């Protein structure tokens, strides 16, 4: 476990923990908690996406499908079967992981833009499918009975429980992201990213390696979805499978630096803060999407490696600290 002493891991974990502890130090705790919740949710989603996008080099445009599906499965269990939140969260994660496993064998055979298109198709198909399933409430979705919150100490306490769970989940994701990167499995993924055919010649079993990366990157968003929609109190197809949020996830990964552990954490926090500021600014609130678009364009055209990637490339000494 020598790699656990790497400063890059502790930097990423410390940054995530700092966001998580922020509400405890702020004067207006509930308000700060909501901001920190948005950031930690983004950190979790971006870091999971990074396992596939950054390490493996496969662009999943419809990654939000795992968030939505996990959310639906967990929500259904909470609402209809009164299971404990922890069980529901686990079930949501497993459902998304299973979907990724089944899909993985099929669509991961596609490369480049074809894979990206297929993931969009999967997300749209899933949304259209869920809309037609009466078990999940069809187009209007489901609303959680308010009594459910009583078993978690009332609505206010339930909000804190959800917050702490998302904080814990984000720390776990960052740790897993680091462990994957420094493992033999992660090396295989990065070899696939650089040149899939060469990787196979060198003995990387590409199909199963890619599939497990896909499963891993789907598992955490599935759990996250359950927590978010538990807090939200209702779920509907239009909210669960928003293609736009998928792409926001990609923007966060790109902004921070794809393929790095710290990058998605930094990118998620920066993007969410920027978005928050734009939304409340009188000048920009109507065109916040356009401003985000310009930002994305500038990153793609001029700093494709993201902030962390750029720093690592520019200052050799930082390569030992930033991972």
């Amino acid at each position, binding site marked *: 476990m020598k790699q656990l002493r790497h400063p890059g891991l502790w930097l990423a974990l410390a940054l995530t923990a700092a966001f998580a502890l922020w509400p405890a130090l702020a004067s207006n705790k509930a308000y700060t908690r909501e901001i920190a919740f948005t950031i930690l949710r983004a950190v979790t989603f971006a870091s999971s996406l990074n396992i596939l996008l950054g390490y493996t080099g496969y662009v999943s445009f419809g990654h939000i499908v795992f968030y939505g599906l996990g959310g639906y499965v967990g929500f259904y269990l909470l609402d209809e079967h009164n299971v404990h939140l922890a069980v529901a969260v686990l079930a949501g994660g497993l459902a998304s992981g299973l979907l990724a496993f089944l899909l993985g064998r099929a669509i991961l055979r596609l490369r480049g833009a074809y894979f990206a298109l297929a993931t969009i*198709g999967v997300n749209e198909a899933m949304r259209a499918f869920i809309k037609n399933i009466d078990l999940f409430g069809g187009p209007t979705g489901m609303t959680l009975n308010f009594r459910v919150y009583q078993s978690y100490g009332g609505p206010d306490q339930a909000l804190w429980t959800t917050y702490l769970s998302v904080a814990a989940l984000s720390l776990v994701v960052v740790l897993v992201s680091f462990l994957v990167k420094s493992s033999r499995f992660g090396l295989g993924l990065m070899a696939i990213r650089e040149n899939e055919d060469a990787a196979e010649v060198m003995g990387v079993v590409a199909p199963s390696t890619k599939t497990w990366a896909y499963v891993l990157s789907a598992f955490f968003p599935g759990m996250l979805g359950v927590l978010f929609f538990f807090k939200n109190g209702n779920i509907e197809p239009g909210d669960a499978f928003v293609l736009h949020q998928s792409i926001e996830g990609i923007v966060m990964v790109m902004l921070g630096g794809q393929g790095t552990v710290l990058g998605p954490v930094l990118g998620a926090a920066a993007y969410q803060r920027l978005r928050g500021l734009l939304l409340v600014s009188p000048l920009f609130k109507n065109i916040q999407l356009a401003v985000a678009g310009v930002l994305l364009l500038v990153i793609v055209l001029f700093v494709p490696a993201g902030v962390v990637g750029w720093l690592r490339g520019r200052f050799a000494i930082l390569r030992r600290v930033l991972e």
Partner: protein
Amino acid sequence: MLIPSLIDGLLLGFVYGIAAMGLSLIWGVMDVINLSHGPIIALGMFGIYLAFNGLGMNPYLTLLLVMAGGLLLGIVIYGVAVQRVIDAPHLSTLLATFAVNMIIIGIGTAVFTTSPRNVDFSLGSISLGNVSLTWTRILAAVAAGGVTALLYLFLHRTQPGKAIRAVTDNRAAAELMGIPTNWILALSFGLGTMLAAVSGGLIATFFPFTILAGGSYEVKSFVICVLGGLGNPLGALIGGLLLGALEGVIPVLGSLPGIPNIETSWVPVVEFVLFVLILLVRPQGLLGSES
């Protein structure tokens, strides 16, 4: 029930077809999936809307302006967002064109809001036997057919058109033959967005829309491109007709004896499952050639 729905679907299919043709042309020439396709379709709709409701212009004449605007806009988008990353991995061009998408939607939402609009333009309808068809749909299909024919002539009979096909075949070789490939790529991108804008303009003459409406037509264009073979513009027209026919026929299949009723809400499920399946089994498209 079945025949009118089929004809209605086919007429709509022509319009879907030219939207997809734009996407397919850009993909074929430069391996770029243009994710700003949807907002440009929406801009085409608003072009017709503003000219008709504001200035009282005839929608079909305005279409020429929309075409010119689409062409110019495409060339600008290429120069600003695509040119620099054209040889980078797919992620870069996908994100660059998506950034354009966000910019157009962001500004569009601020200017036009997201409330629904419609072009209140009617030419009546004709009845053929027991089939009743509105003239706007028929004219849209005719216009789409005309645009396709012009595109075909342009690609096969003119110097720039031939250059586009040469660049599609092999960009490096075309460059060596003295073709200014950068201009040809810009022109192809412009033609692609022009087709998107025209299809949007035609849709606006019979469906209500918002600034966000382009999104669903963009996704339909993906499905059509995959049906017809990515990078094969004429295949896109056939793919469009196929999708239009499916959309027309699936909801009324239940009226036939022995077939269970399928609700309209299942149509997108069928479409997207078909889409993913074709991508898996025949990524070159149903009509694409083996390569």
